[in-house]
């Protein structure tokens, strides 16, 4: 299943370590108290709520355990996890419902 090699892995780890640190250090280290432009801040506010759904949606619509075939049970578990997270505002409850749903998929499938 794993198709990537050690070199790629370490390049990604080192690249992410440097990149993440740079992102976190950029402002507190160099910017001092200067303000970032409004338009940039306004876009940055939506990075996580945009990138994560964009990553997840194809994985849910074409799940890997079925070999990429759309499956109603998998969709249902995904929707359940999302809705519980949205309604309870609590990552832990969402994760637990997801785990429960996954267990059902596993036992039934």
């Amino acid at each position, binding site marked *: *299943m*794993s*198709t*990537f090699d050690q070199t*790629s*892995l370490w390049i*990604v*780890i*080192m*690249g*992410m370590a440097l*990149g*993440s*640190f740079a*992102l*976190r250090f950029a*402002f*507190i280290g160099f*910017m*001092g108290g200067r303000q*970032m432009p409004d338009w940039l801040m306004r*876009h*940055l*506010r*939506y*990075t*996580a*709520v*945009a*990138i*994560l*759904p*964009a*990553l*997840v*949606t*194809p*994985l849910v619509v074409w*799940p*890997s*355990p079925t070999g990429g075939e759309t499956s109603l049970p998998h969709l249902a578990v*995904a929707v359940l*996890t*999302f809705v519980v*997270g*949205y309604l*309870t*505002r*609590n*990552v*832990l409850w*969402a*994760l637990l419902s*997801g*785990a429960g*749903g*996954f267990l059902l*998929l*596993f036992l039934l*499938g």
Partner: protein
Amino acid sequence: MAITTPKSLFLKGLVDSLPFLLVASPFGLLFGVLSAEAGLNVLEALAFSLAVFAGAAQFTALQLLQENTPLLIVLASALAVNLRMGMYSASLTPYLGAAPMWQRAIAAYLTVDQSYALSIVKFEDEPELTVPQRMGYFFGTTSVIAPSWMAATVIGAWVGAQIPASWGLDFVLPLAFLAMIGPMLRTPAHMVACLVAIVVSLPATLMPHNLGLIVAGLAGMMAGAQTELWLEQASARSKAKQETAP
């Protein structure tokens, strides 16, 4: 009057952060398990968590690596997930920017969702805190979370190595992300950003090298930013109307 030293604020931060352990530990475990499923050994999984220390970005990179995505796109996507850290850093700067450089460097490494969320509230509520007191609190909030994240990764990687691939654990990863997304949707603009990203992401999978992820993500960000702007303008207009009404 209570004496608040940097040390007592460190303890305060530590105590305030404890509830977050319930969230960080399962995700750390999960990261370990999934990296084992992806073929990483315990050492590699730990190195990943130690070097990067950002859950969502680590999950993203792990997923894309398994899809044979070009490394540049893996890095760009994972760092895009981490862009919010830049925002956190910017918003903490007015409070911590005056601390010595070595402390700021350590604080940068320890900037995660939990430490930011707790600290910014504390700093805003108690503007009288000195810079060393604030640093004490900030370090306190990560003093337990960071080691637990690493430990959970190791345990997960070790356990994951014993789990057969036939269990289909790959599907837990999208579930973990979905669990994170729900609580993030606090405003209509967040929901628009999320919805647009979802809609664009499906046709965008036709693009080569997983570039569609970045395109869909950017589309969502622009939609969210634009919605925020519209809502602000609309509320300003309705306010103006009320004031001019007889």
